[in-house]
């Protein structure tokens, strides 16, 4: 797990690991950490795709404010992966990429 930091604070963080599913594949995380953090540590960057443009989206605010990390977790759509704690056997899925793509210029919408 190269995505984990060693050094400051890591001693306090020797939590046991859990196995859960990402799109049906078994992956490993640390007990109690948010799904998005387990995935980030595994090198996963795309957690989903924008529903209009189909562009990839990842962790942005990491504290539940932006809703960019929406995934289907435990069968429930649009869960914020940065808030959802992993647990043994949890089913996590990326939501499907839309087939008809609309180009969205995020800058001109501001």
């Amino acid at each position: 797990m190269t995505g984990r930091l060693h050094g400051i604070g890591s001693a306090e963080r020797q939590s046991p690991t859990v196995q859960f599913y990402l799109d049906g594949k078994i992956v490993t995380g640390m007990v109690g950490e948010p799904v998005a953090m387990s995935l980030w540590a595994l090198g996963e960057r795309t957690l989903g795709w924008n529903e209009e443009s189909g562009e990839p989206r990842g962790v942005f605010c990491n504290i539940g404010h932006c809703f960019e990390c929406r995934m289907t977790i435990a069968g429930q759509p649009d869960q914020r992966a940065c808030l959802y704690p992993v647990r043994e056997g949890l089913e996590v899925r990326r939501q499907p990429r839309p087939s008809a793509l609309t180009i969205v210029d995020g800058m001109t919408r501001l």
Partner: protein
Amino acid sequence: MTSSDVVIVGAGPAGLKAAVYLGRAGIDACVVDEYPVAGGRLLGQRYRQRGHWWVGRKVAQELLDSLSACPSVRLLLHTSVVGLSREDDRWQIRLSGADGNIEAKAVIVATGASEVPIPVPNWTLPGVMTVGGAQVMANVHGVRPGQRGLIIGLGALSFAVAQELAWANVELAGIVLPPFGPPFRWLGSVDEQWSRLVHWMHLAPIWMRPLQPALMRPQWCRRIMAAAPRRGLAVAGTRLRPNVRALRIVGDDRVQGVELVPCQGDAEPSGKPWVEPVDFVCLSGGLRPVPDIVKAAGAAVLESPGGLYDVPVSGPLGETTAPGLFVAGNVLGIEGAQVAMAQGQLAALGTVCWLTHSPDRSLEQERAFLAELEEARRKTLILFDPAWPEVQCRAEQAWRSRGESH
């Protein structure tokens, strides 16, 4: 539906401190937080001061230990409050998902702050995050944001987080300015961005500190920043590059670099752009309070142009204009965690007075808590924005003048 005498929204330093006070008074209270761990933004903070470490996670743990000795308080995590309304003299707190409602006599809102993102072309690419998001990733979860990053924007958190990432051995290519022109007008001119640096001088290397009086003066600040080499000045474990701007983020399905350009102040670029190879980017545009549910509950909020300084109209004990609704912490303005704790204590005192209908509330206690708030402000480890004291003063004036008209 369940009920509690008091519901506290937010288990950050303000909410937890309020909960400890209520718990010690034996009051039945429920603390709701949407994060899976209690502690709020305290969890990611660490400072080194005169050889001592101040570790937010430990402070949060102490608050939780005190709380575990209070059987009248329960903690509901990974649960969002999505609505707040008053019906038949009671507050209805609507929770996310299948969690239903909680009914309460009084509510303390301690929902903290959110980051103001700086839009940069391609900022939606995976690997672009807010600077606080990177702080939570590295300090709270021990997860590496990436192999090499760049911070865009000279916010207060830029320097704190740069230093923390350096301590965690995460490489940074520096701190650079955001792109030119709108929609960045609220950041002010480059001069204004540079002059704000004065407030974070305590993070500067020792050799720069004698320059502080000079940096206070705009013309000197401008000269010193303009003279900085393109590779920047060594600050907070990284390099502050006040003469380099980000133009856009590059990458296909994740960040691969940032296009940077040399510049002198607000003038057009003074050299050729280049792509700095990085795999994560931190956007740092500052913090703003989150008073949304206070507003939704019908309490008066002092509005500001652009909404960045919106705060509830509130009294010294965190009273709002809605009956039995109190506020504490960063919803009242952006300050450090110790200030949030002092405010949490005051709001808890206000809540107890309100629940017991005691008009001659404990003035002695109130004075002691107000003194603690002042002390926390004096000892603050980080100053966010010098505009806050004035905004808070106006919010309190608005609260007082409302009292007079009744």
